[in-house]
């Protein structure tokens, strides 16, 4: 029993409530937000692995069938959860740091949304209870809408309303799927459902079980922004403030992997589950990257690239072997860091020039060499260039798909990487290297120091993960081995 596990959710949630309650006292909420932000990555690193049962209801053994039942909402905390929660905590801290240095008057309600989103994804990845997952999935959707609507970019309200309307189709459908599962098993605890399914107490080919997969899968598509939701997902990234977008994409990635791991545990006996995931991942990769190639707004372009990269994660999970799952989860970790770096870096450019169209920009390398070089390294990492972290995970994915007997998927993976590289080089050229247009005025010559600091920290993480991937992959591999048993 470890008391630090529930604190990972409770601390950001309490901080969110306090911040919105005391939003009149500017100094107080600034200090509180910073302190909690520092605490967020430390708590998971200090905590021990284990399970936490809310209310202290220990699991009960049914003496007749000898099956363990979990009456309480259970949080399970392992290496995978630790590394992802620590990464989101670090990102939240950086985002809050950027926000607090950018605005003199901190808005309590905006900080509320940021912390609430962090609490929601932390609960999503920790939970072992399928309804608990649904509740936090809804809270996360509301927080995301709030973050988008709070930005001062044109048309952000429209995008937030579109996201909300699509969400209010996606989440009841997911609830219906959970209802189907509940009707078949009578429990909402994932471990119990898995033991019922594996124990053969349930007909896995019955239409009700298959439909529950379909409905939960649709909700997952909405949460992760795979097609048909890739346009709205890239849209909300481009309409949020850059630091908000950096956090939003990490929310997306984590909700994607946490829901898909729960689905994987329940439905992995059905071959059609893996077919579905691979199908949608391939479509996401093709559509995301090809749409990114035609964008002229660079925020939208990064948004589409981020959606395309999600396809890689889905591919790793869809292949279903231990190596492939490890590769997919490692890719998820890399994507959180790299995309955050790109959003923050391009946000710095928007801050300096007030311009988002690549055609109207040019010659910025002379003005912002530091930002330019860090962005270049980040883009190369996303495309999968050797010493960086994106290379390691993509190489693992290529090897995994080859060893599973799908060379077509390896070819597709490499092609998408190359196209990502093209997108990035094209944008980098037209923004930083091409001659400066006459009517472009570089309004604010200083890029905020906090943004450069955040980018430097993320860059260190990228290079460290690229040079020493074993630090993460061996632990994730052990965790995945436990899932596949």
């Amino acid at each position, binding site marked *: 029993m470890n008391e630090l596990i529930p604190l990972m959710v409770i601390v950001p949630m309490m901080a969110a409530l306090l911040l919105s309650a005391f939003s009149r006292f500017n100094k107080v909420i600034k200090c509180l937000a910073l302190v909690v932000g520092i605490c967020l990555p430390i708590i998971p690193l200090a905590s021990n692995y284990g399970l936490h049962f809310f209310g202290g209801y220990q699991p009960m053994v049914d003496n007749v069938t000898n099956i363990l039942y979990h009456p309480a909402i259970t949080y399970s905390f392992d290496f995978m959860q630790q590394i992802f929660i620590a990464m989101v905590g670090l990102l939240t801290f950086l985002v809050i740091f950027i926000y607090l240095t950018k605005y003199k008057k901190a808005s309590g309600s905006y900080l509320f949304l940021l912390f609430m989103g962090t609490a929601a994804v932390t609960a999503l990845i920790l939970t072992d209870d399928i309804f608990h997952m649904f509740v936090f999935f809804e809270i996360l959707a509301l927080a995301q809408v709030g973050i988008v609507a709070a930005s001062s970019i044109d048309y952000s309200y429209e*995008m937030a309303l*579109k996201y909300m*309307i*699509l969400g209010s*189709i*996606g989440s009841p*459908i997911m609830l219906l799927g959970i209802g189907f599962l509940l009707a078949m098993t009578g429990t909402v605890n994932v471990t119990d459902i898995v033991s019922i399914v594996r124990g053969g107490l349930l007909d896995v*080919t019955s*239409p009700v079980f*298959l*439909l529950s*997969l*379909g*409905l939960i*899968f*649709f909700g997952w*598509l*909405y949460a992760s922004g795979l*097609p*048909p*939701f*890739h*346009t*709205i997902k890239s*849209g909300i990234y481009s309409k949020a403030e850059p630091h908000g977008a950096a956090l939003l994409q990490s929310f997306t990635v984590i909700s994607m992997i946490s829901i898909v791991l729960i689905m994987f545990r329940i439905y992995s006996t*059905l*071959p*059609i589950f893996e*077919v*579905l995931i*691979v199908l949608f991942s*391939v479509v996401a*990769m*093709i*559509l995301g*990257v*090809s*749409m990114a*190639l*035609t964008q*002229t707004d660079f925020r939208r372009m990064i948004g589409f690239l981020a959606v395309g990269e999600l396809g890689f994660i889905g591919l790793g999970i869809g292949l279903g072997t231990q190596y492939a799952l490890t590769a997919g989860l490692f890719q998820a970790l890399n994507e959180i860091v790299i995309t955050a770096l790109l959003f923050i870096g391009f946000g710095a450019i928007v801050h300096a020039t007030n311009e988002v*169209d*690549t*055609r*109207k920009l040019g010659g910025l390398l002379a003005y912002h060499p530091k930002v330019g070089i860090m962005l270049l390294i980040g883009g190369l990492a996303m495309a999968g260039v050797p010493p960086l972290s994106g290379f390691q995970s993509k190489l693992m994915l290529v090897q995994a798909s080859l060893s599973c007997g*799908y060379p*077509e*998927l390896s*070819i*597709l993976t490499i*092609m*998408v990487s190359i*196209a990502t590289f*093209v*997108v990035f080089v*094209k944008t980098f*050229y*037209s923004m930083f290297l*091409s001659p400066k247009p006459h009517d472009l005025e570089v309004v604010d010559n200083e890029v905020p120091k906090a943004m450069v600091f955040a980018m430097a920290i993320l860059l260190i993480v990228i290079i460290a993960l690229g040079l020493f991937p074993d630090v993460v992959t061996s632990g994730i591999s052990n965790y995945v081995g436990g899932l596949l048993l």
Partner: protein
Amino acid sequence: MRLYDQIFNVVKKFKELFSPGPVTNADVSGSITAEIFIIVSIVIAALLLRHVSLLLAALATLILAIVLINNIPLLPKFKIEQEDSLEKMLFYAVFVLGLIVIFLYWGGTLV
């Protein structure tokens, strides 16, 4: 020569695709890359059908290749279908929901 003309036509079509403003050669080359990328990746993805049936994969690949190359300015069509209007997003969301449900209900036990 017909294919060349078609590709040249693509470049002309691309001008309508971008929002008003100057269209640079970087954008056009990006769009041509996207065009080729879509064709090749869809054809390669169709090869995955060989795990179901070899004949089906061969047929699907051939038919897809011919259809895609004959309709060559593909990108404007793709882009119009993926614009930001709520109506299109909702239509595709409900359409995909229907597809998933039908696919799982009738095909779930086959794969």
